[in-house]
């Protein structure tokens, strides 16, 4: 009997991997190489001829206060988003696993932000945080925390605008992180919780000494995924503040877009974006190591 195509596993494996590889090469690898090449050139939208300029773009960026602001913001927004996301996602995960009436409605509502595209969610938040129409202001006025004719102007002041960006990032990341953490929590055998209850541990001790340590690997993975998503995201800043007030809320991704696409200076835009690389590499290595540790244990 002849061996058919289905028996040649090596060939079949390569054949099936081909679409994925083609996709990654065309949409990730090629733009990545082009971006690095551009960052050492003087390519602009108006003059696409390639001339080597060495580190000129990096030097120019480094002298630019907006770039430094964006670099700092990227790290600060990511770190703040992660801390808040991990805390809130743990609380939400506990809520999701709890048993109460109407839990399906609550679960649906909690997961909703995750299913909303980032840009769409950001547009909704633009309205929520509008300088005149903000419903949040209205609520603050109703409960008496804000005078009737005054407004917070969420997106108009540096501190509040930064807080708003972080808030929206947290809003859209918490559901994903909560679902991942919930999976980790449900993997803990019931007996362990029962044993802790019999051993005399109350809710907080059980949380700190049993639930959290046992979900720590999963929390780490959720945090790393969230960090990568926040670190590389430009849509929230772009839609919510577009960098305002006066570039106070720019991050690397949005600033690269402003420079490269809006301003047409592809080379300088690419040099900004390349700064994302080292941290992303470190995060990827960390995730891969965490996953491998998981597989071993």
């Amino acid at each position, binding site marked *: 009997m002849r061996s058919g195509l289905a028996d040649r596993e090596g060939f079949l494996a390569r054949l099936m991997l081909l679409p994925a590889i083609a996709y990654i090469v065309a949409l990730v690898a090629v733009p990545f190489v082009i971006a690095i090449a551009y960052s050492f050139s003087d390519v602009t939208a108006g003059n696409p001829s390639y001339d080597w300029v060495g580190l000129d773009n990096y030097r120019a960026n480094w002298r630019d206060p907006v770039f430094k602001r964006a670099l700092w913001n990227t790290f600060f927004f990511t770190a703040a988003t992660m801390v808040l996301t991990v805390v809130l996602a743990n609380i939400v995960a506990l809520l999701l696993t709890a048993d109460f009436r109407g839990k399906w409605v609550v679960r649906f509502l909690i997961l909703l932000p995750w299913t909303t595209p980032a840009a769409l969610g950001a547009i909704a938040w633009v309205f929520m945080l509008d300088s005149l129409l903000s419903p949040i202001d209205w609520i603050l006025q109703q409960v008496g925390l804000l005078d009737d004719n005054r407004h917070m102007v969420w997106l108009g002041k540096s501190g509040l605008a930064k807080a708003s960006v972080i808030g929206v990032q947290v809003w859209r990341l918490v559901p994903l992180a909560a679902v991942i953490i919930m999976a980790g929590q449900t993997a803990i055998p019931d007996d*362990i919780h*029962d044993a802790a*209850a*019999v051993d005399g541990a109350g809710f907080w001790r059980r949380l700190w000494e049993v639930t959290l340590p046992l979900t720590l690997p999963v929390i780490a993975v959720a945090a790393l995924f969230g960090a990568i998503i926040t670190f590389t995201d430009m849509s929230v800043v772009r839609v919510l503040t577009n960098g305002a007030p006066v570039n106070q809320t720019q991050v690397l991704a949005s600033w690269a877009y402003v420079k490269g696409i809006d301003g047409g200076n592809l080379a300088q835009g690419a040099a900004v974006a390349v700064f994302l690389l080292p941290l992303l590499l470190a995060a990827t290595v960390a995730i891969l190591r965490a996953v491998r540790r998981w597989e071993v244990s």
Partner: protein
Amino acid sequence: MAVAVEAVGLTKRFAGSSRPAVDHVDLATEEGEYLVLLGPSGCGKTTLLRMIAGLEQPSEGEIRIGGNVVNGLPPRARRIAMVFQSYALYPHKTVRQNIEFPLKAQRMPPDKRNERAEWATELLGLTRLLDRRPRQLSGGERQRVALARALVREPSVFLLDEPLSNLDAKLRTLARDDLKNFHERVGTTTIYVTHDQVEAMGMGDRIVVMLDGKVRQIGPPQAVYELPADTFVATFLGSPPMNLIPRDDVIVGFRPEKALPAAVLGEALDGHRRWTLEIHRIEYLSGDRHLHGLATGLGTPTPVIVRLPATVMMPIDVGGTHDFVVREDDLCYFDAETERAHEVRAR
């Protein structure tokens, strides 16, 4: 100080289940007693134990520990300790941290905690394992750590949920001795759940036989074995089980080892019931012969098993028919309809 546990009309219904998992159970331990809950899986023995622990809330009835009603109290307010079938050790804590955890929960100061943990580990021979984590331990060692964790804060009641079922057969025998010795030393009231009748008979001061959420019989091992309250207890205990022979409106029962060939007793047959056994099969098990055959003369001809002790050398062949006797006093009588034992044994 040993403390008694009582259950009064204790019932547990789980949502979506038509019959209660535990159905109006009344029982009371004596102080310092080793009480074994025995029954097939799904009989409600673990649910009963979990209600005593406070891990399940009863649907009806009362639980008293040391005379106080504990319904609604969380486990930590009940001064009980429990060993789980899976041991439920904290995988991220060392043996020492596992054992100290209940003391930490009581806010005992670290030096005192240390002292107690060392006392418990010494008692159970775990001293050299203190810095290991549960996954580096063998099954037997894990079981001892679970026991140490239960023991360390000197509970008034021990609850053990099939603590031996995850051990291999050889280790189980050793662990059984350990558990029993341990109980004799600490003298704490212990409730032990098992589906293994050998464990129950060997360890229990008294045995509670359960089926379908109901208590069928409570008594010392010998009483439960020799005077079963109904046909379920009669056949659940003993291997091979009690022979049951229908006769008119009663069921006559006798244990396989209570029958002897008439020839062995010679003429001294006073107080014995004589019947005949047609031998179909002989099994030779650790010196004894198990005779499988058809019994006539005790009621409706019925297949029975007779266990001949190794000391009876009489030749018996498959296909032959022999006269057998059972002492009248060794016969049990059950109502054919209710399957409950008759109060008056001889008829």
